[in-house]
Structure formats: structure tokens, C-alpha cells
């Protein structure tokens, strides 16, 4: 079980291979990709920034919660920081379990919580030359629902 912040591209095959063990009957993963549009604007690239010390402790809490709540064997997360181009992988979540149901549920839980709680931000660079820090309205709404921040 680990959370890692990476300044270099995430090697999905290598990460997956590290998780292989004979007790698990299934592996579920999620990859978050850089898409070429957001709220109607054409995106050229992104800059991810993290507060590493706090991101690490908060992400590890989320992974522990996933282990406590779901019948899984293992769960890992890697998040990129720095400059990312369209098509690159921003985040990878891997979960192994004896049965697939728990692995799917835990994977969804981890990425959902990460997007609400882990201090990572992105600055979008648009084709028109402008840029801006992204406010994820859906994440903000969920953070309000959880009482982490307020309306």
C-alpha cells in the first residue's frame, strides 16, 4: 500500500506487475488522463502542483480507509506533478482483491476521495495562450457536503 508523487511519467505495467500476488483473484485500475478540453476551453497542457507533506498523509489515510472498508488485498496510488501534455496519465490507482466487486468499489472510493481531499491543484494552459488554476466544481460541492469547506 503506497501513495507516491511522481515527477516522471507513470509506468503502468511496472506498477501493475509490482502488485501481482497469488492470493488476489483480480486487479482493478483507474487511470486519469489529460483531456484536450475543459468547460468548453481547448486545453494544450497542464501543470500539477502538490503540497507533498500533506498530500502524502491524507492519501495514506484514504488508502487505509479503503483497506478497512473493502475486502481488498492491496491498493496503491501514483499522482503526477509538473508539466503534463494532453494524453498523459495524471493519476493511477491500482487495487487487488480476492474478488472483483471489492476491487471495483475500493478503486472508485480511492479516486473519489482523492479528488476531494488530497492537496493537489492544476493550472490549465489553453490553446489561446491563457492559463488558469482549475476549480473543480463537482469536487468543491462534495467537499462542502462532507463539511470540509463551506458554501
Amino acid at each position, binding site marked *: 500500500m503506497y501513495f507516491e508523487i511522481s515527477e516522471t511519467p507513470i509506468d503502468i505495467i511496472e506498477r501493475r506487475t509490482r502488485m501481482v500476488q497469488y492470493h488476489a483473484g483480480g486487479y482493478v485500475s483507474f487511470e486519469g488522463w489529460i483531456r484536450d478540453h475543459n468547460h468548453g476551453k481547448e486545453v494544450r497542457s497542464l501543470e500539477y502542483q502538490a*503540497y507533498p507533506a500533506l498530500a502524502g498523509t491524507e492519501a495514506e489515510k484514504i488508502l487505509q480507509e479503503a483497506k478497512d472498508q473493502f475486502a481488498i488485498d492491496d491498493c496503491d496510488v501514483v499522482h503526477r506533478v509538473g508539466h503534463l501534455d494532453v494524453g498523459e496519465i495524471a493519476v493511477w490507482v491500482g487495487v487487488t482483491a480476492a474478488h472483483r466487486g471489492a476491487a471495483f468499489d475500493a478503486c472508485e472510493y480511492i479516486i473519489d476521495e482523492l479528488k476531494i481531499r488530497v*492537496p493537489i491543484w492544476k493550472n490549465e494552459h489553453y490553446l489561446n495562450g491563457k492559463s488558469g488554476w482549475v476549480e473543480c466544481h463537482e469536487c468543491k460541492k462534495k*467537499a462542502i457536503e462532507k463539511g470540509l469547506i463551506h458554501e
Partner: protein
Amino acid sequence: MTYQLLYFAMFQDWAGKNEEQFSSAAATPAALYEELCKKYSINYPQRQLRVAVNDQFANWEQPLNDGDRIAFIPPVAGG
């Protein structure tokens, strides 16, 4: 007291730096944020932020100590 302030995301743009040593009489994160808003003409509402003291999420009203490392955390956007 002197605090170490860490700036992330839009706070870096507003303050024009990543971090600074900040002398202040403010004794809580809430009071400190109010002071910072005046200094840098920030109008982001405190209620939509979280605050971290010494790399842990903290309460807005908790007493601060000299040398504390403080970061104001705007809504996150990872993933």
C-alpha cells in the same frame, strides 16, 4: 510571532511567491488569513478554504505558535 507561510495554486499568484516568513500578531489561522487578505488584496472567502498547520489539517481557531508552518488550502483539483 513569525510564521512560515506556504503558498499553493492561486495563492502563489496572489502573493507573488511560494513561501515567506511572516511576522504577525495574529494568534489563530483565521486572524492570520484576514491579515493576509488585506496585505495581498485577496477576496477569496475563508469558509471555502481549509488550513494546514505544520503539514496537518487544522482548525481555524486553534492557537498558533511562533515558527508554525501555515498553508491555506484552496479547493483541491487533483485526479
